[in-house]
């Protein structure tokens, strides 16, 4: 059976954060299971914090950017293998 994956992209330019607050544990790590609609990362743009959510449940197989890294609109952030 072949596996199917999808990538979460950011709808806006900003700064990528793995955790919901500094010092808190990352929302996701590689290998972790996420449910559909679960918050997977935070994008800060112009002092507004936007939570990005998983479209479908699955397993995180890759995090494509570093914490606090600037990201461009539509940039791919996280790859998830669908259940």
């Amino acid at each position, binding site marked *: 059976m072949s596996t199917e994956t999808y990538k979460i992209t950011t709808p*806006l*330019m900003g*700064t990528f954060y793995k955790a919901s607050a500094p010092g808190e544990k990352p929302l996701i790590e590689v290998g972790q299971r996420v449910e559909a609609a679960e918050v997977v990362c935070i994008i800060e743009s112009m*002092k507004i914090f936007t939570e990005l959510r998983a479209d479908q449940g699955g397993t995180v197989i890759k995090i494509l950017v570093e914490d606090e890294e600037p990201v461009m609109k539509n940039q791919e952030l996280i790859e998830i293998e669908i259940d």
Partner: protein
Amino acid sequence: MKSIKKILIANRGEIALRIIRACQEMAIETVAVYSDADKDSLHVKYADEAVNISPPLSRKSYLNIDNIIKAAKDKNADAIHPGYGFLSENESFSKACSENALTFIGPSAECIATVGNKSAARKIISALGVPIIPGSNNVISSPEEAINIAKDVGYPVILKASGGGGGRGMRIAHNKEELVEAISVASGEARAAFGNPDLYLEKYIEKPRHIEIQILGDSFGNYVHLGERECSIQMRYQKLIEESPSSFVDEALRNKLGETAILIARSIGYTNAGTMEFLVDSNKDFYFMEVNARVQVEHPVTEMITGVDIIQQQILIAAGSELEFKQNDIRLNGWSMECRINAADPEENFMPSPGKIENLVLPGGPGVRLDTHIYNNYEVSPFYDSLIGKLIVWGKDRPMAIKRMQRALSEFKIQGIKVTTGFHEMVFKDAAFIKGNINTHFLEKFNVTEAG
């Protein structure tokens, strides 16, 4: 009187330019500071000198006290103007200025500390007999405590960041579940914006008007107020349109609010420019909200109807001058309105819209003032606030101010990023708005949803 010959401006964007302009008119030299992201910004070009204070993230640049103080000393500045936001209401920054023989243009560090601790400030101000909104008297220590207080004062309740203002870290909760979630989100925003995650909680007054009083106080105990500003047109607790005077405030209420604001200022030994914010309900009963110990974004509407240059007054007061006018000298002439133009997309739930500005045409003509740092081909960065300019108009009365704003908005052309001018045009055509029939929930009818 202290001599102020050179001022470092510890800010960016339109307010940095505003301060530079005030200084130039007073023949005071200026030093700009800028992050890597702002190297092409106008405040860098307009200042006499400019110092790079490194990386874009606010906490490494415009919130970096050591770098800013070092820049001021290296350039032999006598004083620092903090603008609004960033370090403007930071007690440690004000202290660091005095320790380094730099005049901080604003209230004393003690005063910033007093009003900055919003729960303590509420106690002091309530003791003066000023009505306040019921809520937590202290910073909330746990979700359980917040739930108990909310039960006492009744839902809905509002969470506010203890360390800040400007809508950051503010959330409304209508029930226990919403409150628990709101605490976590608001606390995160507060920490990121102000470096302090502390929150307090109060009862949420439905459909109030936001009315604030601008005061000036010198170091000789002289106080004047410059009338009110109405800032009821808000989105996500961020002001979007401000005006002065308010169509809701009559002479009696203006005098009462003005006297109350000065009473508050005098009781805490407040000096320099400051704003006392009130919520006013439909019965014209008012509740004290908070003191903003800084110049505010919306200060131009007050300048337009009083003729007082608030930034220049701040500098004169900081230099130890006595106010040159008394309350009786202050006349409110005509009507002024301000639209905050933000880089945000009204059609995408006001999602931030950073990017490169193209084909820019700016409004002008009679009664129009535009405070902005943008220019054609300017790159609006995602690192800072979305405010790209303030469009201010003056008219002899409110209908004339509205017509001028409609015209000025229609002249404002911009491509490359999304901005809020079209949304402002819609508000300025709204029948209830034109009648002055507004409150802090006014924008809800435009189907503006919560952030996210």
